[in-house]
């Protein structure tokens, strides 16, 4: 089977799911497929496999190298973990969507040409949206529609870009590109949408809190990281990415700070973390690309862990809003611990996974002399601590007791969280395992004394600042509210404007038609007046008038004929 690839395994399983009536069996399949895939990916030889000819194009469906392998591995792991976390889910649709989504993401990172990438790109869009709709509320429905539209927008831009690029370069191969032509810009923006570039980001914060408990965990892993992969593959060293990434790291932290829905806080945090990876891609040195890959790897794990823990809270309490929560450590202590591990990881506390990956990117930025960017990343790191490191666990588990006494998360969730948490810690302690998977062979040692010292200072004093703002009451309270983001433009402003001007436009559009209709009606009325049975043209002419006309005609004919002689 030259075509065989892990993605097909997932997709076939997704299709097969529909015919399995036993939900438990489906859950088992959901768990087994990623395990097989993980093994498969680990054993794959580097090189290009599964080449297909289609309509004169050569599709390379399996390009295995360091970069694609590490993403495929973490995607498989993430799929497995979220399957375990979703063990209780009986909803066939979510199960199918999860499998198809994960499979497409894996297929996407193995895509050796842009067309294959595009196909998987679209499948991730279509499959993932069901995880949002699966919530089956009005709000989730419209959020899902928005999500799908934006995802497909990204897809069609990619399609447009790949066609233009193909026209320009004569090649569909998915390799490093340089910005310049319309085609590459289209591809770039397509990646940018899925990667949640600033102002293209709000689908992320809009949709992730809208998905189901388990759906959000799945969502958090694939789409954006696939985009990061695509950027790393397609646009390494594109300088504009450095600045885009820096902005990405910074602006979400402010929103995250005042956001009430903890899952949305995590979505903003996700956006911020993507910024680090984008900066890494933008720097583009082997070290930076390594940093991006490593950070994506770690990030998938700890972000999943955080989403899992908040998901567990939601699962047990029915809400994920900071203003409704607090003090849950009493009855959900294990979830709280896992959440703390996730928080520590994302905050890059030494011995946790974020520390070993983020420092790669910071070092790369430092080495290349991007001092402004470096400062931005530093500030962003403090920001990460503030919203993900402190706010998430604090608001959910520690802050003022909300009075809820939910039961501890179900066992399978605890297992999923536990495994994820231990992976986070393991990577933090033994970074070599992760580093050995990285695409580029660049030696790096995170645990230097200076590094640990500076990081601890940063975190320690930031914690102090936290204590300070708490004591002084400067810390924003958790209140039931939403904060407008740039999606205000298309969710509020534009609809309002359209509603306002549409009557005018309607009138304007209908005017020419009305005029035309009037003119036609008028002229037909005139014609009708002449032509109806009593009209001049149609009534039986009297002999007098007939003869008169005859005379006139005769005269005219004579004049005409003699005029020429």
């Amino acid at each position, binding site marked *: 089977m030259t075509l065989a690839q892990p993605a097909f395994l997932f997709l076939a399983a997704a299709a097969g799911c529909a015919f399995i009536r036993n939900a438990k069996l489906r859950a088992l399949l959901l768990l087994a497929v990623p395990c097989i895939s993980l093994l498969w990916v680990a054993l794959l030889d580097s090189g290009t496999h599964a080449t297909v000819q289609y309509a004169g194009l050569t599709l390379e469906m399996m390009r295995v190298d360091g970069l694609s392998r590490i993403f495929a591995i973490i995607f498989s792991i993430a799929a497995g973990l979220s399957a375990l976390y979703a063990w209780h889910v009986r*909803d066939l649709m979510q199960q199918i969507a999860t499998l198809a989504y994960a499979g497409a993401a894996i297929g996407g990172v193995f895509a050796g040409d842009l067309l294959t990438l595009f196909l998987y790109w679209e499948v991730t869009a279509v499959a993932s949206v069901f995880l949002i709709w699966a*919530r089956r*509320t*009005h*709000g989730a429905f419209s*959020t899902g529609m928005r999500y799908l539209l934006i995802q497909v927008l990204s897809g069609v831009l990619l399609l447009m870009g790949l066609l233009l690029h193909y026209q320009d370069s004569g090649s569909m191969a998915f390799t490093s590109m340089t910005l310049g032509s319309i085609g590459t810009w289209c591809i770039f923006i397509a990646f940018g949408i899925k990667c949640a570039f600033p102002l293209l980001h709000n689908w992320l914060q809009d949709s992730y809190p809208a998905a189901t408990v388990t759906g959000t965990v799945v969502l958090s892993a694939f789409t954006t990281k696939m985009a990061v992969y695509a950027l790393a593959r397609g646009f390494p060293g594109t300088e504009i990415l450095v600045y885009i990434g820096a902005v990405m790291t910074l602006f979400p*932290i*402010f929103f995250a*700070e*005042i956001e009430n829905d903890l899952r949305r806080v995590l979505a903003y945090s996700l956006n911020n973390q993507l910024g680090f990876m984008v900066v890494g891609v933008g720097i583009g040195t082997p070290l930076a690309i390594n940093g991006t890959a490593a950070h994506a790897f770690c990030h998938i794990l700890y972000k999943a862990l955080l989403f899992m823990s908040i998901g567990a809270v*939601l*699962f*047990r309490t*029915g809400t994920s809003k900071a203003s409704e929560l607090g003090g849950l450590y*009493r*009855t959900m*202590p*294990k979830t709280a*611990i896992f959440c703390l591990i996730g928080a520590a990881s994302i905050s890059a506390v030494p011995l946790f996974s974020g520390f070993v990956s983020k420092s790669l990117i910071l070092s790369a930025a*430092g*080495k290349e*002399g991007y*001092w402004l960017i*470096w400062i931005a990343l*530093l*500030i962003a790191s*403090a*920001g990460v601590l*503030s919203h993900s490191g402190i706010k998430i666990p604090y608001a959910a*588990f*520690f802050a003022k*007791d909300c009075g*809820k*006494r*939910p*039961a501890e998360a*179900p066992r399978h969730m605890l297992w999923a969280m536990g495994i994820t948490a231990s992976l986070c810690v393991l990577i933090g302690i033994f970074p070599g395992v992760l580093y050995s998977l990285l695409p580029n062979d660049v030696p790096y040692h995170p645990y230097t004394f*200076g590094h640990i*010292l*500076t990081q*601890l*200072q*940063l975190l*320690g*004093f*930031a914690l*102090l*600042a936290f*204590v*300070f*703002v708490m004591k002084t009451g*400067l810390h*924003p309270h958790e209140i*039931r*509210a*939403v*904060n*407008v983001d740039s999606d205000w433009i298309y*969710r*509020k402003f534009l609809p309002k404007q359209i509603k306002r001007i549409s009557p005018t436009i309607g009138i304007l559009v209908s005017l020419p038609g009305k005029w035309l209709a009037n003119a036609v009606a008028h002229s037909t009325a005139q014609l009708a007046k002449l032509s109806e049975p009593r009209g001049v043209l149609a009534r039986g002419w009297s002999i007098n008038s007939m003869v008169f006309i005859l005379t006139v005609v005769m005269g005219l004919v004579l004049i005409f004929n003699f005029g020429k002689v």
Partner: protein
Amino acid sequence: MPSKSNKPYDFAAWFTWVDNPVRVRRVVRALLIFCAVLFVIDLLYHRHAYFGFEQSRGFYAISGFVAFAGIVILAGQLRRLIRREENYYSPESIDGEKYPPNELSIIDNKQRSEFTDSQQNESITSRSTAHMDQGGDK
């Protein structure tokens, strides 16, 4: 599935200090000392650095504190600008509506709540569950 009450070990005990102002104050004090120690080490230890400014003494400490405090304060100001009520976009947005309960397993077992300040919570909890049930019928 409700977790069993007769567990061999209760992790919640790890965190009980959070609700005890005295112990919290003790933790804060420890943090202060920890930071002070770090700061002192930083003064003594010559770090490898990429940039000149990075090398200045206490750079990380100050930037950590200032960045954190700045972010929090600025965010507070930002909120005044962009805060809206929950169903601002639409009454049917996810922010306004309840999570459909059928996918959840909301369990609120009060008998396990050794740490409860019992006077207030029962009423709140029962109200919220009642509310949830209504929401489920929609």
